[in-house]
């Protein structure tokens, strides 16, 4: 059996206007999971539950073999968490922060922290109040990366960064994977980042998990079919198709359970298949959210 870095079973958390409902999640050790979903979907709540910062009403949470929230103190030595709302001390230098973290975490890697300073273009002697948004994000990441935690949990690590900074962050995250035992969970609105570096993708919307699986298998299930219908015929949504739009004789069908036979099946209805196209994660994201909301409304 593969070791699981994160395991959530039937986790539930009720708020007045929002419910995180029946969340099941598994992240095998040595992998990167991208958590995506619209604003307010429950990404941050899920992250805070698995860190033990918020206590679930029901369900089991295990992180690196520790039951949460009961064993959160023991778990935290091996978890590195960074989020946008994390505050550094404005009046102190980055170097002061680095010494502070080093004094708490014995695994602090001083050589790696110096390397990251250089790669991120940060000045250790500068006070935080002089840092730009991007520099603050990079400083926060430096402080967790140099601890070399077994599990990195990052809430929106690339939001608001310029392309060069984003690239630097993605490079450091993928470099973590050189070590087979380490894992990363990150949430992002940037589907391009998720598509590029994740091994697992988890889609969350309105407090529920819509999909959670291996990225390659996931992208492979989605296709866009461009079809030409015979005159006067409206093409049906065959099994595996979640949406079909037709104007005149031209139709576009979106498949979320694509198999090559699906194209043949359309040809059997008399349609001509003009093309079968791969979809980007961004396109899948939008199609999937629209589809799941239609289902809820029906």
């Amino acid at each position, binding site marked *: 059996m593969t070791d699981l870095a994160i395991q959530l079973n039937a986790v539930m958390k009720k708020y007045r206007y929002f419910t995180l409902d029946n969340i099941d999640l598994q992240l095998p050790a040595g992998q*990167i999971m991208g958590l995506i979903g619209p604003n307010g979907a429950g990404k941050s709540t899920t992250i805070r539950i698995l860190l033990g910062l918020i206590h679930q009403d029901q369900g089991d949470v295990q992180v690196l073999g520790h039951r949460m929230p009961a064993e959160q103190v023991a778990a935290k030595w091996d978890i590195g968490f960074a989020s946008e709302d994390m505050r550094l001390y404005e009046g102190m230098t980055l170097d002061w922060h680095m010494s502070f973290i080093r004094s708490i975490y014995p695994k602090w890697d001083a050589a790696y922290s110096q390397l990251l300073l250089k790669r991120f273009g940060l000045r250790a002697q500068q006070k935080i109040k002089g840092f730009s948004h991007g520099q603050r994000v990079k400083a926060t990441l430096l402080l967790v990366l140099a601890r070399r935690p077994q599990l990195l949990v990052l809430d929106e690590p690339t939001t608001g960064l310029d392309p060069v900074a984003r690239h630097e962050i993605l*490079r450091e995250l*993928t470099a973590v*994977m050189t070590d087979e035992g380490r894992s990363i969970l990150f949430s992002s609105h940037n589907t391009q980042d998720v598509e590029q570096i994740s091994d697992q993708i988890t889609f969350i919307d309105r407090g529920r998990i819509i999909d959670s699986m291996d990225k*390659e298998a996931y992208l492979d299930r989605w296709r866009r079919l461009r079809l030409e219908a015979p005159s006067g015929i409206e093409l049906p949504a065959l099994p595996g198709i979640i949406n079909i739009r037709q104007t005149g004789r031209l139709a576009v069908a979106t498949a979320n359970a694509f198999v090559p036979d699906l194209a043949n099946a359309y040809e059997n209805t008399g349609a001509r298949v003009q093309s079968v196209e791969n979809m980007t994660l961004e396109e899948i994201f939008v199609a999937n959210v629209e589809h799941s909301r239609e289902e809820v409304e029906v």
Partner: protein
Amino acid sequence: MSNAFVISQSDKRPIYLQIMEQIKQRVAIGDWTEGQAIPSIRQLAVDLQVSVITVKRAYLELEREGVIVTQQGKGSRISPNPGLGIRLQQQELQKHLEQAIRLSALLGIQPEELEGRLREANDNVAAKEQK
């Protein structure tokens, strides 16, 4: 040795196909030779800044095509006869060409016209890849 790989976000093909193609190119032009050890899945993923699972898929498909061989615990190498995989692709191309010829005959398209259409299709593909 994997520095010159380019993974393009504007390329419509999935990343694993882009990786496969670039490995085959290296074999075809002789940069990577028979029996040569190639980067481990994890190493190439880190170098290209893509997920491990994507590189794993590219390697699995390349193995299926006979371009590389992977031994548990020993990593991957270019297969002793990588040309076999590329030859299979040649056969695949031949099959598609013959299929196109049969279809044209059905539609009453003359060979000269088909040649023109092929050139047109080539321009279309080139234009799309430029985008």
